[in-house]
Structures are given as C-alpha cells and as structure tokens.
C-alpha cells in the first residue's frame, strides 16, 4: 500500500499534467475556450430553475419559496453528476488509456486518481456556481453548509471504489461497461433526485435503505434545501459500502493489473 502511494507521489507531475490536459482538451479547438466550462453548467442550472420552478410551478411540499424545488433538484442532480462521472469514467479508464498502458511503464494507480481529480474539478466549478447562486438568491444555509464536505468525501470514496471494481472487470468482461450504462439509469430514478422521497409508496421507500446514493443525496438536500444537518446514522450503510468497495477495488486492481496489460 505504501509502495503504491510512493509510486503515486513519484508520478504526481504526470497526474496533475494529465488533469490539466484533459480539462483543456475538452475545449480544444473551440473559440470561447475556457468560457464553456462555466457556460455549460450555468445553462443547466438556469434550465432547471426556470423550467421547474417557473414554467412547471413545481413546489416542494411544505416550502414557501418558489426556488426551493430548483435548489432541491440542483442539490441532487449536481452531486449525482459527480458520482456518475467518476464511476462512468473509471469503468472505462483502462480501456481508454490502453495505448498508454501498453507502451509506457508508469504506476497504473495514477489513472483512477486522474479520474477523481478531473471529476472533482468539474464538480468544483459547477458547484461553485451553484453556491454563488444560493448566496445571491439568499438561500445559503449558513454554517451547516460545511456538513456536505464529509458527505462529498464519502461519495467520492464510494464512487471510485465502485469505479475501480468495474474498471478492472470491464477490461476482462466488456459486458460490464454496457451493462452499467443501463443500470445507472435505473439507479438514477431509484434515487430521490428529481422527486421528493415523500411521494414514494412506503414499500418502495423501505427499499431505499439499500441504495447508498439515496442516503447521500438526501443528506445534500437536507443541508441545502432545509438548512438541516444530515441524518448521519442513515449514512452508515453507505460508509460501510464505500470502505468495502475501495478494499475490493484495490485488491482486484493489484491482483489483475499485470494480466490487464495482456488483455488490452
């Protein structure tokens, strides 16, 4: 483990360089360049706000503010986006970087780190904008806002643990990638992102205990919409799942990393 960390530290230049290059490459050959990094998420926030709160006049039950549903939606959609980006990129990272892996000897563990940093950077931009919007519109929840930091860390750990497991398996069984693309759609709608959890029938709501993402998304909503700290106890299963996934992912990665090169 410490050898892995040392190797990672040794190639930190490559990791940071890759993050920067990947960020740049998204807007390569565009005329507005970096402006798109802001415009894209901004458009998304505006769409959710305008469509849902103004056009559809959606209201959260028990809330007076016209913006509350938009905030509810953004709290879920943005954090779900972080999760989906990490898992989605991680499950294909080894396949996408096959060229590099086959030609150059470098610590392969750098790849998941690059995925996390990249997704984190994208998330920081859009979430920063969202936070700015909260402050401007007077919906900033105050100190309780800091409670989302541990939840975010938990979510990232869960996502990369899962992503690493899927990423390694995907090299050997390409069906994994196809399957997960379908699975995550069902997962999204089984998580109270767009709808309030209250509208679910009791039988289904009981099943949400088995969805670690539901607990995390609800924690964000609790902080950002209602200004209440998360229900920490509800996050315990997610925490256990994250630890187990990270351990499983690392174990799988270390056992199969050599074979992976032959398979790409």
């Amino acid at each position: 483990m410490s050898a892995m960390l040392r190797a990672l530290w040794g190639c930190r230049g490559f990791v940071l360089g890759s993050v920067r290059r990947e960020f740049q490459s998204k807007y390569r050959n565009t005329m507005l360049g970096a402006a798109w990094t802001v415009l894209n998420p901004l458009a998304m926030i505006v769409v959710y706000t305008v469509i849902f709160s103004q056009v559809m006049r959606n209201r959260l039950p028990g809330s007076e503010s016209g913006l509350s549903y938009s905030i509810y939606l953004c709290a879920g959609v943005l954090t779900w986006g972080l999760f989906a980006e990490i898992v989605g990129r991680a499950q294909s990272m080894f396949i996408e970087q096959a060229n590099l892996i086959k030609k150059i000897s470098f610590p392969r563990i750098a790849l998941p780190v690059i995925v996390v940093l990249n997704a984190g950077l994208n998330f920081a931009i859009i979430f920063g904008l969202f936070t700015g919007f909260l402050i401007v519109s007077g919906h900033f929840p105050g100190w309780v806002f800091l409670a989302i930091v541990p939840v975010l860390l938990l979510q990232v750990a869960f996502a990369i643990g899962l992503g690493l497991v899927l990423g390694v398996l995907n090299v050997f069984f390409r069906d994994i990638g196809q399957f997960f693309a379908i699975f995550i759609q069902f997962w999204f709608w089984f998580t109270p992102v767009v709808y309030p959890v209250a509208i679910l029938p009791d039988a289904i709501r009981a099943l949400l205990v088995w969805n670690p993402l539901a607990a995390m998304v609800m924690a964000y909503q609790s902080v950002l919409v209602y200004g209440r700290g998360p229900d920490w106890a509800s996050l315990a299963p997610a925490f256990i799942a994250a630890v187990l996934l990270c351990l499983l992912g690392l174990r799988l990665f270390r056992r199969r990393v050599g074979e992976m090169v032959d398979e790409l």
Partner: protein
Amino acid sequence: MGAITVSGLGKAYKQYPTRWSRLAEWLSPSAAPRHRLHWILRDIDFHVAAGEAVGLIGINGAGKSTLLKLISGTSQPSTGSVHMEGRVAALLELGMGFHPDFSGRQNVYMAGQLLGLRIDEISELMPSIEAFAEIGDYIDQPVRVYSSGMQMRLAFSVATARRPDILIVDEALSVGDTYFQHKSFERIRQYRRAGTTLLLVSHDKQAIQSVCDRAILLDGGRVARQGPPEEVMDYYNALIADRENAQLRTTAHADGKVQTISGTGEATVSAIALFDADGAAVEVVDVGADVTLQVTVTAHAAIPRMVLGYMIKDRLGQTMYGTNTDLQQMPLADVAAGRQVVYRFRFPMNLGAGSYSVATAIVSTDTHLVNNYEWRDLALVFTVVNMRRPHFEGCAWIEPVIEITHP
C-alpha cells in the same frame, strides 16, 4: 548503475476457450484453471553489465518486443524477474503514447513527466529537444498532423533528452530517414561512451554490428545464442537461410513447381556457398575482402551447351553485378547426365555494407530465354559489413586515392 539482470524470465498469455471460461475460473477459485498458457518467452537468462551494448535479434515473432516490454516494466512476467539499476528510458513503439490532439510541445511535457522529469527540467531541456527533433514549427501543431517519421523524431528526442542509465530501443528507429537514423545512432554512441547501457532491437545487421558489444539471438521464445555480434549474426543468417530453403522445399512439394526456382530442371544448382580467403564458408563478409563464390551444378540429363550465370542483388532486388560463363567465353559443351561441375568465381567484395542475395541461372546461351535449365532466386544470402574501412556511403566500394594540393 545501469546493469540489467534477467533471470528465468518467462511470459505466457492466458487463452480461454470461450469468454465465459474466464468468468467461471474467477468465480470458482478452487477449481482447476480453465485456460491454456501460451508461452511467448521461456527461461530467458542474461546479464548486461553497466555500459555494455547488447543487440537483440530474431525473426518476427521470436519474442523480442515482448522481452523488451518485460524489461521496461510495461508488461509483467509470468515467471522469473528483471532487475535493473538506474534511470531507464524505453523507446518501445512509435510515438510513446502521444496524444494526437495535443501539440508536440505539450506531448513532450507529458512524455517527459512519464520519464520522471520535472516540469522545470523539461522546460530547460525543451530547446535541445526541439533542436534535435528538427521538426520546426510543427512542435506547436497537434501531433495528429505529424508524419510517422516526425513522431519518431520527437519521441526519440524526448526519450534521450537526458542521458539515461539504461536506454532500451525497439525497432522504432527504422521509421526515420537515413539522416535521422545516423543522427540518432550518433547520439546513442555518444551516450554509450558516457556509460549508458544499451539494449537495442533491430533487424539492421549493420546497426547491431557497429554499435553492440554483444548480441543475443532469440528464436521461438528462447535464447538461441549469445556472443560477439558477428558470430551471432552468422548463426542468425544461417537460421534464416535454413528457413528460406525449408519454405522453398514446402512450396516445391505443394504444387510441384516453385515460383522462385524455375526452369526445366535438366541441370540444377546442387550446392552454393561463399568462401573467404582462408577457404572458410562465410555469410558475413567484410568490405573489400577476397571471396570465392562456389557453385556446384549437377546435370540430370545430357546438356549440349551449358552456361552458368549469377547475379548479386541488394535487399531491394537491384542487381549489383551479374555475369555468366557465356559472356566470359567459358561455356561447357556436352555435359553428360549425372555429371557434377564446380564453378568458382573469385572476386573482391567491393560492395557497400548491406544484405545481398545471389541468384543463379543455368542456361545454354547468354540469355535464359532459349534453354532455361534452372533459374534460382535467393540461392544464397549474405551480408557485407564494414569492419576495417572508414565509413562510406553507397553500395559500391570505390576507394579513391586522395590528393590535395595547394597551388
């Protein structure tokens, strides 16, 4: 710093009968393995001392590239181990994983970071990298618009920007033009003198013989021979020649006729060899050395008039020289069936370094169009190397006497 020790190295790929077999194997770890091992390399043992230059040769598929991948750490061995000391720069395949959408300059940074250089070190080396690659303004263009030669130039320049303790070069260099090949070999030689250990894979006999202290021949995934480059090259040539003949024989059996050997077959070449001045059979000849080409012809029927011709061709098939016994006014008349005739052609090997082949023709006049008893391409393959002369260009050895006056 710079020693490489390879012990008991082996590499096998797992082959599963179906896609499901792997899953079955993974899910039931207690059960017997469901894969077959396909061995690419086996029992490779050698040691390269610091500062030594070793050439790795072998036909395609002998396992050279796999061995380099194991040594450079790109791929992991199935058995055995590789131990290396010092900073390693490996130029495995073309492009070193360049990202096509980024400029050459950005790729230099990325490749440099992968080689373990810091950003400021790369910035410092950048001018010399640009200068060595000689790709001009292309350095700021995306790599996708580069030619393969340009990619190779840049890759080589980055990999060798800083003298490594160990330099591993795959056949990548052969992509470049002659000018750059020379330039890069000059740099390799220079690093060699400074103490870099070199491991070079090449089909270019000249490159191996001029740069390396030792050669290792891989055949069928095993070390077939190692020793002085000349000796190993000789053995390698014999191996190739054997393979070529074997191929000829198989084709001959398959459809009764061979493409490269044509003719009526009333007389055939039964033996052909090249001998040096001491009478020893050779496959590698020094420029300007006196050699004898000995051709034994067996007549299978009575031949009223027999002429033997030969042509020396370079590896591109261009004829360097050709003659026959009709042009030399030495035709044989009335050769009886069953007779053997031995021809000896003595000449100095005034050819430039390179690989050459000999084609023979047994005819009745000065062309093979009247009676073509046998035409045999690639009857003999040999290599000319420059061992004693100063370096020169071209495929002919035309030594001048130089006179410089200051009137």
